[in-house]
């Protein structure tokens, strides 16, 4: 496989198919899209199969100096591999979810989706700073159109909010990128990841990147675009938004903020913890009172992403691995939950929880899948949700037991709102005749649910398959972060108070960075 530009091919296939979707007759657009996404899925499987676990850090690298100022440079490590795998796995499901529910302007719809796929893979595979930025930003256009054209009643407000919020976040990051490239003299991401930026500058750079990633993630209090966008997007759009787009924020933290600005990350960790704790408690409580199913799941996404951020800023292997696993698991589970909502939405055309009830009687198979995904969202052992959350919380416990305590309430609240949702939808009396008359899953829906359920269980029972590819990369990141690592309060410390400790560690981190700077310049 060496030398074969498989990543470029994976980017090209959906792009070509997107153009094809615009020109073929509208009834055939969905088939073109499905075939293209399946080809990309196969390529993704080949990619994973050929990925050399424990081998070079960057594999499948390609480089071509096509442009002025930056280059076409691709390559993946284990972290990117997993997220690309998630993308190509979810895309056929999204196409399937849209198979019958999209009945206007199909060609444009599937074209927008395929362009999204190209850009998402591009984000994870880009090894050039500006190539990354272009891919990262370009995703706004197709998503704006998907929400605005095929979304629900309040779609226009939601599409503006989505676009302008994320744009404002990203443009500041662009300025920071210019500064970094000017300082380091390269646009190569792996080089920049090892470059030691001056500590004072890191503060500003970190904040600029944070503005972008926090909005994408989304973190409280800049999460408000998400419930609107999710609720108004069509099912396929919600799946891809929750499944992959939100992961760009977390990926950004792992790829940029943490390795490039370790000291600033340590300095701002309390801010991240505060925002995450607030998100876990506040959005979980908000989710509890939602009457709209999609909104409930959207708020639960914010809460889950908050646990990702605390895990990332725990600065240790468990926390980082846990965060990655939550991202993968959330991608599957939130996608599957939106799909489950989509299944009944297609039948009754409402997302009001109160309009359903007792679905386990007339839709038993559906109820089983929905239960599985609900449990996975809660984080029941044996499902994918458990592993990541457990690891993340272990990671954060080593840093701050208080943060761990408050974030763990998210698990309890999560159980509350998800079980409450499930009880109202699937159990109880069949008080609505039309809901009671809905048929169970058809073949197409089975075909989408089975793979999702299988992977959710696989990740829950044998997470090693997913940890193995990224172990070395996470360890490298952990080693990179060691210079700035704050000391935890949960360590037994003989006869000393714990207050002020992280601060002292932070200061020593600064001086360590000063010492390390000349070395990094070579």
């Amino acid at each position, binding site marked *: 496989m060496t030398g074969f530009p498989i990543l470029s091919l994976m980017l090209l296939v959906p792009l070509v198919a997107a153009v094809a979707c615009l020109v073929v007759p509208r009834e055939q657009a969905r088939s073109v899209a499905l075939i293209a996404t399946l080809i990309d899925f196969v390529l993704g499987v080949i990619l994973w199969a050929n990925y050399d676990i424990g081998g070079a850090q960057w594999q499948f690298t390609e480089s071509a100096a*096509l442009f*002025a*100022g930056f280059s076409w440079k691709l390559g993946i490590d284990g972290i990117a591999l997993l997220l690309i795998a998630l993308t190509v796995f979810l895309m056929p499901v999204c196409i399937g979810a849209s198979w019958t529910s999209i009945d206007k302007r199909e060609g444009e719809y599937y074209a927008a989706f395929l362009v999204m796929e190209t850009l998402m893979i591009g984000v994870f595979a880009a090894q050039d700073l500006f190539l990354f930025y272009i891919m990262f930003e370009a995703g706004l256009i197709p998503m704006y159109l998907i929400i*605005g054209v095929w979304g629900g009643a309040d*779609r226009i407000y939601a599409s503006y909010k989505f676009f302008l919020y994320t744009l404002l976040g990203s443009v500041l990051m662009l300025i920071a990128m210019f500064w970094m490239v*000017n300082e380091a003299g390269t646009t190569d991401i792996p080089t920049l990841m090892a470059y030691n930026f001056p500590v004072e500058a890191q503060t500003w750079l970190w904040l600029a990147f944070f503005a972008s990633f926090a909005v994408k993630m989304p973190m409280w209090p800049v999460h408000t675009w998400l419930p609107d966008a999710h609720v108004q997007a069509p099912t396929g759009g919600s799946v891809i938004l929750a499944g992959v787009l939100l992961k760009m924020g977390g990926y950004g933290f792992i790829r940029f903020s943490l390795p490039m600005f370790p000291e600033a990350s340590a300095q701002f960790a309390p801010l991240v913890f505060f925002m995450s704790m607030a998100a876990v408690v506040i959005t979980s409580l908000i989710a509890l009172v939602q009457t709209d199913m999609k909104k409930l799941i959207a708020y639960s996404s914010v809460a889950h992403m908050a646990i990702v951020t605390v895990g990332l800023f725990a600065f240790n292997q468990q926390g980082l691995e846990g965060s990655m696993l939550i991202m993968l698991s959330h991608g599957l589970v939130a996608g599957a939950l939106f799909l489950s909502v989509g299944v009944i939405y297609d039948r009754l055309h409402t997302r009001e929880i109160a309009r359903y009830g007792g679905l386990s009687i007339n839709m038993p198979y559906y109820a089983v899948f929905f239960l599985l995904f609900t449990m996975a969202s809660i984080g029941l052992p044996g499902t994918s949700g458990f592993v990541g959350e457990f690891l993340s919380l272990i990671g954060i416990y080593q840093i701050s037991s208080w943060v761990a305590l408050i974030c763990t309430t998210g698990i309890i609240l999560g159980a509350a709102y998800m079980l409450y949702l499930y009880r109202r939808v699937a159990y109880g009396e069949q008080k609505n005749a039309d809901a009671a008359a809905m048929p169970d899953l058809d073949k197409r829906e089975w075909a989408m649910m089975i793979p999702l359920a299988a992977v959710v269980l696989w990740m829950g029972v044998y997470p090693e398959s997913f940890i193995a590819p990224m172990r070395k990369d996470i360890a490298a990141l952990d080693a990179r972060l060691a210079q700035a690592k704050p000391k935890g309060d949960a360590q037994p410390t003989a006869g000393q108070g714990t207050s002020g400790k992280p601060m002292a560690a932070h200061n020593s981190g600064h001086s360590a960075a000063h010492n390390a700077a000349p070395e990094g310049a070579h």
Partner: protein
Amino acid sequence: MDFARSLALTAPEILISVSGLVLLMVAAWGGDKASRRISIASVAVLTACAFLTAPTLWGQAMGPDVSAFGGQHRADAFAAFAKLLIYASAGVTLIIAQPFFDKAKAMRAEFPLLVLFASLGMGMMVSAGDLLALYIGLELNSLASYVLASSLRNNERSAESGLKYFVLGSLASGILLFGMSLTYGFTGTTSFAGINAALSGGLPTGATFGLIFMLAGLAFKISAAPFHMWTPDVYEGAPTPVTTFFATASKVSALGLLMRVSFEAFGSQTQAWQQVVIFMALLSIVIGALGAIGQNNIKRLMAYSSINNVGFILIGLATATRAGASAMLVYIAIYVAMSVAGFVAVLLLRDENGEQVEAISDLAGLSKTRPWIALAMASVMFSLAGIPPLFGFWGKFVVFQAAVQADMIALAAIGIAASVIGAFYYLKVVKVMYFDEAADVVKGTGETSHTVLLVLSTLAISPLGYLGTKCLGTLADYATAALIPVG
């Protein structure tokens, strides 16, 4: 010998002047029936001039070898870069104007000639090496432009736009002339090199006033805030092909002139004009963005968008570095492509009576009735907003990169944050075309020549444009090297 060399260096200008005069005779005897032939001949003249100019750019011409008539005229790579854009824009204007005026039954033989003379003036502006050459070029261009703006004689809006342009333009010329006379008075020379040498020791107060007045006059010509007020009215009222001409060729020449004056005449006193330029840049970005939000006429919206874009171009000037100047040229070239695509798309929108559709609300649902025009228009809008992967992003990219390299991070951060306000109204146009129910106003069919131009310019601003970044960047660097000599 020296005179012959000067003539050779001004060959494109001489060619335009002579053929313009000859065609004027043809127009006088042939009447309006000859207008089509005159248009074709004019496009041929412009093409020939482009071929005459191109080698100057390739050859990186610079220095005293390429200055003609005792330094009055400079046929260097910088002038060539700007002239190629001007000739291309003028050619596009002529191509789209013929069918437009034919439809309105208002084609007159003078029209192509005025475009030709305006291009001549523009070429002289960007080649100017002396305040006098500058002013002659500027006035030749302006007077032709005033007439062009009112070339739909029976249309009230067109007449109004011409008059407004004339009154305000004359005021600006007056201000510019006042600034020039102050500068002359305090430096004792009208040549750019002489002014630069005279000011290298320090800037007398009188020359500062001269500089400020000159900047004010030029700011009017490039429609930078706070001297932008005429732009929306003139852009809206003038016939669409003429608006295209104003948005492209006029902008290029005025910006080229501004660069000449800033870097050549006042190159030793950069800090004196930098603050003014920063102020104008930020104000233009904000006013352009806020002003556009309330507009319902697509041409007015494009006018505010041009104010907004001039703000971004001025950020490149504010850096006062070579990278900044080169970035400006790249931005200008991309802006010309975006404007051409935008206005040609507007030209293709006609209702069932063949009347021009200009109201944004009438574009509702265009993506269903005219999907390809809508796609082109959406590309223009996203490109103007600077969203990657469209090519408009590249213009912003190089300009802001230059600003960060010049350590003007606050300026870059404020400017780029303000660009998000601008994104709002571009999105509004996309929203109307894609999200709203079809208004079914756009009926008519467009000309083939328009369609071809639209396809070409849309391809240029599509992601394919990035493949041209290397070439464009190199040419802009050649041009900048001629403007700001190394060392």
